[in-house]
């Protein structure tokens, strides 16, 4: 590793690339999430489109160096549209042997691998279950391996700070970030600023991190470690104001803004659960928006409290993930029966049971539709990208209020934590949400329905003259009084179905990306959007008559869907489950669609979808 004798930057070649997928991997304590987030910010400021995916272990802080303690963050940045966090890696940064062991399989042949040799001690190799040091055998030959002495050089860079060794080690990630920032021509200024803001209160830490990132950057600049750096030109991006946002943040915002538009307080009743807790955390910050966050004793109480708040006239929501969903079923049935608005958000994770709590899956769709006893149909809406969580949450709230019904919103652990740049909507462009609390006693009946929506009136307790009782026993069609009359029950069951069915009138025409008819339609919902879009675009680029349709509304399905399905020879439904949307459309439209199913607690790779598309086109 020769430094530049002249002391100034070496003249280095710069190669241009269209897009790069990089992953930072290290121990839970190595700060990989932070590194990834910062690199993401640098990339968006460099004008790239980006997609990110954090991946952290289920253990809070597993013993250092263990395989299950590895934490990673992946970023896909490009001068083109980015749909996903990327498939295989162009570059991988590994802070220790365990990170190498668990991530190397995803690195492309000849990909860039950055490792810190100081960490390849025999103790660490043992914890990572390596028999030989991979830096010393030939197992890494097919990659461009860069042994960057992160530990040593960070120590060197920080020697004047007087910080103890343990603290110095905490800046290693910034050193690595510096190296990689140089390598991909990212500006480190925004990060330097950020460091000042974030660590301003402990200047020694701010200084240490500053020194570390600069040290790393200069290493690239001043040594011949890397023959060239890479440039990824800015993408063509629609003008506007952007922010990088995770799905969970977007979900939280969607609800707050829906409540603001509706001029209602927002009430969240929730019980912490991975990966949903962050929505609770974030909403807890918005108290000045009239947001109540009630951490309940369990999920039943969470949805119960929300239902109570809905009865009281708030925009009521509850957030959870699979295990908690089961527990909310009975209360959701009550909400369906008393016809109060509410949004139940399920941020899906890998099941069954506790499953793999930090991993995403789409396995709760049929539960959302059928998971309650009795005929208790509820609208189901799903988000397809991190930023889309905003719109999906907003729309779920809007529908809930307009139709006086609980609505289920589905996202998943991938959307929850992944992020993408989000073109901020203008407040006025968002649909209005008008709430008509009934106050007129004249002609009032608790179950008198609006003709257009079949919604019953929403009455706030406290309204004089409208005192009435509701409950979960079957009700008379008009008065809402208890009724066991057989014909009335059938009428009520049917009207509850009709009300949900009416929501088709809210659904805009399904967007089909691609030819209006043809060989293959790839139909999806939820977080598979990105992988499908990229794969379909690729197939289209090859001239195939392949189209994509992606559903936001799962119940009811769009009115035009049957017609669309009929226009293609084949229909492929990629899902991170055993084929749940697939069953719905087979039953509804009797189309012989087939599924592409991946149930690994991981999103689809573009290539997985692309390969299947190719196979279906051949058949």
């Amino acid at each position, binding site marked *: 590793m020769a430094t530049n004798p002249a002391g100034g930057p070496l003249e280095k070649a710069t190669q241009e690339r269209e897009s790069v997928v990089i992953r930072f991997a290290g121990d839970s304590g190595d700060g990989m999430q932070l590194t990834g987030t910062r690199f993401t910010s640098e990339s968006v400021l460099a*004008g790239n489109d980006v997609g990110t995916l954090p991946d952290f272990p289920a253990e809070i802080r597993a013993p250092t160096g263990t395989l299950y303690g590895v934490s990673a963050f992946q970023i896909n940045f490009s001068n083109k549209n980015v749909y996903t966090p990327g498939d295989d890696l162009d570059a991988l940064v590994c802070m220790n042997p365990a990170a190498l062991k668990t991530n190397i399989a995803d690195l492309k042949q000849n990909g860039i691998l950055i490792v810190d040799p100081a960490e390849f001690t025999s103790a660490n190799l043992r914890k990572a279950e390596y028999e030989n040091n991979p830096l010393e055998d030939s197992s890494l030959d097919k990659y461009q391996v860069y042994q960057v002495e992160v530990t040593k050089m960070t120590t060197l860079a920080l020697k004047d700070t007087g910080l103890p060794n343990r603290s110095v080690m905490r800046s290693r990630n910034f050193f690595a970030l510096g190296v990689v920032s140089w390598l991909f021509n990212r500006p480190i200024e925004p990060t330097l600023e950020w460091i000042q803001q974030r660590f301003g209160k402990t200047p020694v830490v701010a200084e240490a991190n500053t020194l570390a990132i600069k040290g790393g950057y200069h290493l690239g600049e001043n040594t011949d470690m890397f023959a060239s750096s890479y440039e990824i030109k800015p993408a063509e991006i629609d003008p506007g104001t952007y922010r990088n946002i995770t799905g969970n943040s977007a979900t939280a915002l969607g609800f707050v803004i829906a409540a603001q538009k509706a001029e209602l307080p927002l009430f969240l009743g929730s019980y912490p659960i991975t990966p949903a807790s962050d929505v609770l955390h974030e909403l807890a910050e918005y108290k000045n*928006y009239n947001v109540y966050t009630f951490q309940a004793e369990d999920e039943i109480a969470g949805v*119960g409290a929300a239902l109570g708040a809905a009865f009281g006239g708030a925009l*009521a929501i509850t957030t959870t993930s699979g295990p908690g969903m089961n527990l909310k079923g*009975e209360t959701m049935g009550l909400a369906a029966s008393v016809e109060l608005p509410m949004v139940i958000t399920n941020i899906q994770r890998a099941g069954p049971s506790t499953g793999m709590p930090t991993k995403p899956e789409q396995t709760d769709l049929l539960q959302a539709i059928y998971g309650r006893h009795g005929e208790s149909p509820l609208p189901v809406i799903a988000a397809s990208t991190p930023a889309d969580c905003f719109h999906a949450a907003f729309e779920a709230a809007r529908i809930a209020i307009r139709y006086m019904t609980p609505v289920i919103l589905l996202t998943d652990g991938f959307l929850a934590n992944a992020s993408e740049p989000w073109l901020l909507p203008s407040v006025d462009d968002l649909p209005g949400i008008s709430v008509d609390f009934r106050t007129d006693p004249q002609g009032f009946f608790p179950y008198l329905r609006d003709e257009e929506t079949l919604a019953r009136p929403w009455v706030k307790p406290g309204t004089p003259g409208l005192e009435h*009782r509701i409950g979960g026993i079957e009700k008379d069609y008009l008065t809402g009084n208890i009724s066991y009359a057989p014909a009335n029950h059938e009428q009520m069951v049917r009207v509850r179905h009709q009300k949900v069915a009416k929501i088709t009138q809210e659904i805009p025409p399904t967007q089909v990306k691609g030819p209006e008819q043809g060989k293959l339609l790839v139909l999806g919902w939820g977080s598979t959007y990105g992988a499908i879009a990229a794969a379909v675009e690729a197939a289209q680029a090859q001239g195939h008559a392949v189209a994509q349709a992606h559903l936001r509304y799962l119940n009811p399905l769009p009115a035009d869907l049957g017609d669309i399905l009929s226009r293609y020879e084949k229909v492929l439904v990629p899902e991170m489950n055993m084929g749940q949307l697939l069953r719905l459309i087979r039953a509804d439209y009797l189309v012989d669609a087939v599924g592409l199913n991946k149930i690994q607690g991981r999103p689809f790779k573009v290539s997985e979808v692309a390969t299947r598309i190719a196979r279906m086109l051949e058949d």
Partner: protein
Amino acid sequence: MSTEAAVKLTRKDFVSDQDVRWCPGCGDYAILAQVQKIFPELGIPKEKAVFISGIGCSSRFPYYMNTYGFHTIHGRAPAIATGLKVSRPDLHIWLVTGDGDGLSIGGNHLIHALRRNVELKIMLFNNRIYGLTKGQYSPTSELGKVAKSTPMGSADHPLNPIALAMGAEATFIARSIDTEAKHQQETLRRAAAHKGGAFIEILQNCNVYNDGAWEYLKAKDSKADTQLLLEHGKPMVFGKNKDRGIRLNGLTPEVVTIGNGVSTSDLLVHDEHDQTLAYLLGRMTPPNFPTPVGILFSTERPTIESLMNQQIQDAIEKSGPGNIDTLLRRGDVWSVE
């Protein structure tokens, strides 16, 4: 139809138009009557009153009150009511539950509502049986109870509702009896006046599945001996001739007869605010002790809804009322032209 509390309401204003569907002779009728009786005095406009219940015979209560009402699902009323009270502190919320609804399936929500001190007035109708499901033993049934599901007698030690409420550190705990109209009214008035959550166990007769469960407390000729009427600041005297009392021996209560060297001044004096005393009283059970009725405990501490609403006020004061644009632009934002 005015919101003014000043409008004079009468008992009838609180009677709904629905037929009361309890079994003839059920103790629930008497309780309904007392509630409808005292409500006009409470100064609560009827549109501001909400009755919330779970499932059970007792939980049919809201249908019969001409206020807002919500007959929910089994055991969950405290959770639902908590959400309502937190977001609508202006409402007066009464909760009706049973020994099964409140202590079996709903036990957890109950204790959490009590510890949080949500201002709910919780009436637990304790008939020591599952009425609506036709006669299984309940968590308050005596050990060895022969009932539908326990032909050889139940094998679980009962829960003591008062002890449990003390365990949850409720701020107001009382007990009354369905047939004791006056006492019940007085107890409910006190509960209504309490600033915070109130827990009232009402001993209620299910004449179909557990008839006479509380008969020993009610029988005209013996009730003076079996009831211990608690009055704050008064010595604990009971008995037909007011000649018996409760004395403390260390931390152990004992029944003594007044006279023969024992005088009223030797007796325990009721102190509503003494938590240890309340726990001790709550565990005084027959046959060795009379059953305490009245206000066992009361104290004050902030309600969760006052704290939560205060936080919202404080946040608004600090950061200004929410603004959608600010919110959207929170965090790193950049522009593309």
